[in-house]
């Protein structure tokens, strides 16, 4: 099964992204704790892209694709044509530094890496694809 949602790069659209992901995961009987974590990871990735690659321009679009090739296996792709924001190349700050510098950013990347099994970046034509994968053991 596959699903798609197109979103303008406005932070006010994050709520819609969370609802879209939540509804699909609910249909797949994903338990609430795992579901909340995955919803969070996608919110973090989309808000990072909106802020850093698109400067919150609502005319810029992100495409969110969810593909479920087999029961319990989830492939999420966020596709855009902005500059690449590769979290694998971003050095996440230590928690102590965050407190000391009173920085309000930098935690999201840590969350995404902890929640998802894999985060990779691909090129598809002129588009950037950020692919996140997650395998869950859920009853059928």
């Amino acid at each position: 099964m596959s699903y798609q949602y197109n979103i303008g790069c406005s932070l006010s659209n994050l709520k819609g992204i969370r609802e879209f992901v939540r509804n699909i995961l609910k249909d797949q009987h994903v338990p609430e704790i795992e579901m909340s974590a995955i919803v969070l990871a996608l919110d973090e990735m989309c808000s990072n892209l909106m802020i850093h690659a698109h400067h919150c321009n609502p005319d810029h679009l992100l495409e969110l694709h969810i593909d479920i090739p087999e029961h319990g296996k989830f492939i999420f792709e966020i596709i855009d044509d902005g500059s690449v924001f590769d979290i694998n190349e971003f050095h996440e700050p230590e928690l102590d530094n965050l407190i000391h510098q009173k920085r309000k950013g930098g935690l999201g990347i840590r969350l995404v890496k902890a929640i998802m099994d894999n985060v990779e970046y691909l090129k598809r034509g002129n588009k950037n694809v950020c692919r996140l994968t997650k395998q869950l053991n859920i009853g059928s």
Partner: protein
Amino acid sequence: MVHIKRLQEDNADIISIIGEIDASSSIELDLTIAKSLGEGFKKIIVDCSAMEYISSAGLGVFMSYIEEMKDKNVPLVLFGMKEKVANTFSILGLADLLHICNTKQEAKQLADELSV
């Protein structure tokens, strides 16, 4: 979307978060905590029982006040978190950096102990 309410009990400012805190609404949490500190409250307690969601933007707000509150000797205690929300704090190891209790009673008691 989020609603944030404040009420005062036994000299503590109790901030209730109702709804979801994300990159778009975290500014409201930030302004509320700044206001509470600015008004000179010596104990700040955050009621998380109606908080359905928090992303890193909201967590970052709490983190950014840790040092200032330590300097001012104002304890910040959170209570009543739902399991799905508590999970976000524990993924990052924030449960060790922030004061988190189960009930309001425990939170008030801890705030009293910390403010001595």
